[in-house]
């Protein structure tokens, strides 16, 4: 007698198809449906990194008239990355020089003859530029690249310089990157500045291999937020200083500089909001009561004399206003109206999730407007004290981010950005029910058909 197995072939096939569809439906409506990110995928978020190698920084008030050397900036926001590399930036002085004269005469240094930044954007076709800076006498190189990964990177290289004949600064390189790294598993912004060395011959001071580094890896906030300053070696009059403790070395160096009326301000690493800073090392002219008591009346304190003198100069030619402004800037450190510093290095980095936007245009309900003032967190609450071992900062020892800043959450630990349920769940369930019903109907039909088929014996 034949078995009934052949009669259940359709049933088996229907069952297999049902389970197949169930499996496909499960995966199709699961976490990876509709282009949703996989469990371990890191959202691009945002980031910004900035590094500089050198800045000659006269200030009036807090307005900097600095000439900056070796600036690298990289940033990203969601899928767009940007990067900028600038070998020299003449700043306000350059802008003033580029403007036409007060008497309508041609500018003294047109903008097109001044060095400029290369800035690239990942949306551009030519989003990588690698060029020499040809508008300054000293060799310099600019590199900027921005990819839709997203990943932006800038590297700026500058040659050694001498400032005012009394400070020799070695070659420098600044690097900045921001975006997804390590096969897009980590979000990171990092800024690094390296200066090969600095010497102040008058005081017999030499330092080498100065290094600033700021990293904000928001996918690893415990260990990925780091600020570092270090010195390779330091010496006074040929006597080596302990370089493993930059703070201590700088104390001794300041002792040697005091006779010149100068001091070095050590870099500080600190976190403010969701930004990690490592400050530049400042070489500044410090206030001297004896010197300033002598100079202040001469330079700015005797107002009637100053006013009549400068008014006369301006009447002679409006172009003298430029010299008066320069005089005011240069005399600022002595009159209390400003300051003058040479700054080396200086980096900052920040990254995190993209900011939430409360506006839903076309949606019901008013936007959630934040009317709470979040500006009142002072630095006293958010700045880490300078480390005794130079300047270092680790995320796991940092004070908590102040209210109002975006929380940094490891991407892998976050909930995925879509939800189950909705109309598709109903569609899936109905479909499965129909398949099951069809399979059952088919099975019963086949059983009936089998009973009706005559059986023959050989």
């Amino acid at each position, binding site marked *: 007698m034949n078995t009934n197995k052949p009669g259940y072939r359709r049933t088996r096939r229907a069952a297999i198809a049902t389970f197949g569809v169930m499996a496909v439906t499960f995966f199709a409506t699961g976490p990876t449906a509709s282009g949703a990110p996989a469990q371990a995928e890191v959202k691009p978020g945002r980031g910004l990194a900035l590094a500089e190698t050198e800045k000659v920084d006269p200030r009036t008030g807090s307005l900097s008239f600095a000439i900056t050397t070796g600036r690298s900036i990289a940033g990203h926001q969601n899928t767009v990355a940007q990067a900028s590399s600038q070998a020299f930036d003449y700043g306000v002085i350059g802008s003033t020089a580029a403007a036409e004269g007060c008497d309508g005469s041609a500018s003294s240094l047109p903008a097109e003859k001044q060095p400029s930044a290369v800035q690239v954007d990942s949306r551009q076709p030519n989003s990588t530029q690698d060029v020499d800076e040809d508008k300054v006498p000293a060799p310099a190189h600019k590199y900027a690249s921005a990819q839709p990964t997203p990943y932006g990177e800038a590297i700026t290289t500058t040659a050694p310089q001498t400032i005012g004949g009394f400070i020799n600064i070695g070659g420098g390189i600044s690097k900045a990157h921001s975006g997804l790294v390590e096969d897009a598993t980590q979000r990171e912004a990092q800024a690094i500045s390296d200066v090969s060395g600095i010497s102040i011959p008058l005081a017999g001071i030499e330092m080498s291999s100065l290094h600033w580094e700021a990293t904000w890896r928001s996918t690893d906030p415990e260990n990925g937020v780091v600020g570092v300053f270090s010195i390779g070696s330091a010496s006074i009059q040929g006597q080596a200083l302990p370089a493993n403790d930059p703070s201590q070395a700088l104390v001794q160096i300041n002792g040697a500089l005091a006779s010149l009326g100068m001091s070095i301000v050590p870099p500080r690493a600190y976190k403010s909001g969701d930004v990690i800073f490592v400050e530049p090392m400042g070489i500044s002219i410090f206030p001297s009561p004896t010197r300033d008591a002598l100079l202040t009346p001469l330079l700015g304190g005797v107002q009637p004399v100053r006013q009549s003198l400068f008014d006369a100069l301006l009447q002679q030619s409006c172009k003298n206003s430029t010299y008066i402004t320069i005089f005011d800037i240069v005399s600022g450190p002595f009159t209390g109206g400003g300051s003058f510093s040479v700054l080396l290095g200086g980096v900052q980095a920040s990254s995190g999730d993209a900011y939430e936007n409360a506006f839903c*245009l076309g949606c019901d309900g008013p936007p959630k407007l934040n009317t709470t003032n979040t500006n009142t967190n002072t630095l006293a609450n958010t700045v880490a004290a300078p480390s005794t071992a130079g300047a270092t900062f680790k995320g796991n020892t940092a004070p908590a981010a102040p209210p109002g800043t975006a929380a940094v959450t490891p991407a892998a630990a976050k909930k995925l950005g879509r939800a189950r349920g909705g109309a598709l769940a109903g569609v899936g369930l109905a479909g499965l029910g129909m398949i099951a019903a069809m399979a059952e109907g088919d099975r019963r039909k086949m059983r009936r058909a089998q009973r009706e088929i005559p059986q023959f014996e050989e």
Partner: protein
Amino acid sequence: MASNIHDVSNPPRTYFSVWQRLLRGYGPLAVLIVTLLLMSLLIPSKVQGSGTNVNTTNNRAAGSTASGTNAGATDPNAANSAAGGGATTPGEGGTAVVPGSPCTDRPDQVTGDPYSPPCIAFSGDNGGSTYHGVTATEIHVADRQLNEKGFQQTLAALAGATLTDTPDDLKRTIDALAQYFNDHYQFYGRKIVMDYYNGVGSNTDELLGKGRDKAEADATTVKSMGSFADFSANSEPYANALALNDIVGFGDPYLSVKWHDEHAPYIWSIASAGTDVANFAAEYAVKKLCGKPADRAGGNLKGQPRKFASFAPENSWYQESVQVARETQQAAGCDPGVNVQYQLDLGTMSNQAANLIAQMQSQGVTTILCGCDPIIPVFLSSRANSQGYYPEFIIVGTALTDTDIVGQLWDQNFAAHAFGVSSLTEPRPPQQSIGYAAYKTVRQDEPAFSVELIYYQMAQMAIGLQMAGPNLTPETFRDGMFAYPRKLGPAGSWGFSDHDYTTADDVREICWDPNAVSNYNQKKGAFVETDHQRYVKGSIPGGDPLCPIPP
């Protein structure tokens, strides 16, 4: 031997081919499976409630522009058309009649937009070419491209190095926002078309009162282009030249109500009118400062009887506002003190600052009302600090003097004594702004950093274009603006009327805190709010300022 019965009426399965059997027996199942699979793969999962913009069908490819997209455009809201009377009431003396009707499905044109005008449905003939730059399908808006950094970009660069907007970034953002308003607002079958042109003028020169001839040449170019409006009327010489050429302009910097009246109905701005600023300053001074000691001054001025100085550029359109403030103070029995004027000339600001400080110091001024530009306080504060002169410095919100990036440029010993009123809101990252949300409904990439300012300026224009009705002219634009119901949003209270051609008709009290960290750039120094309240004209409460007394 076995035999089989072959019944032709009920053939065995082997009678059909495999494919025939498959289709006959499993055809419906196969179709169902395929359908289910397609539905599973193509229908999206449950849509997120927050942060998802409603318009996903209008997304445009990168690099696309608003220009040239509106030929034969149909009104996006035509489906909402319903019979009924006019949707809005024309303003006083207006000639505009809005034949559209209120939408049946929503009160606002864009739900969730705090500045949205009332929703209007429209279908039919828009009248075609109602003015130069206006056709049946297009509204041409010019934008002057200059070979220089913008005002805000310059200030941002001064405050510290960062990535800046490129001209391409700005164009892309303007185009995307134009597309947003084309898609969402009621322009009666027309679309905004941005026409960029390379100008010969200089905003820097024009803001300093120079370059009038080049500004006029640029306005003539716009006229020859046949534009209805210009989106870049950011200086007085250029705005004035546009008005003289019968072109609507947006963006003038804090010019007085009188100036706007004289240039009506053409020039509009999201910068408060200088007169409004002056009135708020006067009200603040009268209610909170007059007749009291200068407690928030420093040095030997602290606690002295207050003596005021108004401090503003000498240009007539700024001095008009100063006179209004001084008269208001005088009418309230509050001595406005000396009127100190200066030249808007960057080259001489350093020297002027020295003279100005000496002048105010010698006259015993304890309290300066700063109706000034953002740079003069840099030199002024520097010079004052060198003289140990720390008067109260009253912020009234002119020319971004109420922004963190500007305050950070001042001498901080001096700035510690700065407080006053501002029509701006608290700074926030651009990504949290309404402009960013609007941009994201059109493009999936990132807008310019200045997207919020661009958005507000374009929103002001779009409100007028909608409220004007189909018969678009500068006059109906004005009437439409006057009919716009007052709205409160993140950029303050917006409303327009006779003598009111600018936004932000309310202020909040702010104080400079040298130790606060700015939300804008995470740097030290920020303006902080006192009571988190906004005040319209006449509602500033009495009593002392709520700012802490500096040590």
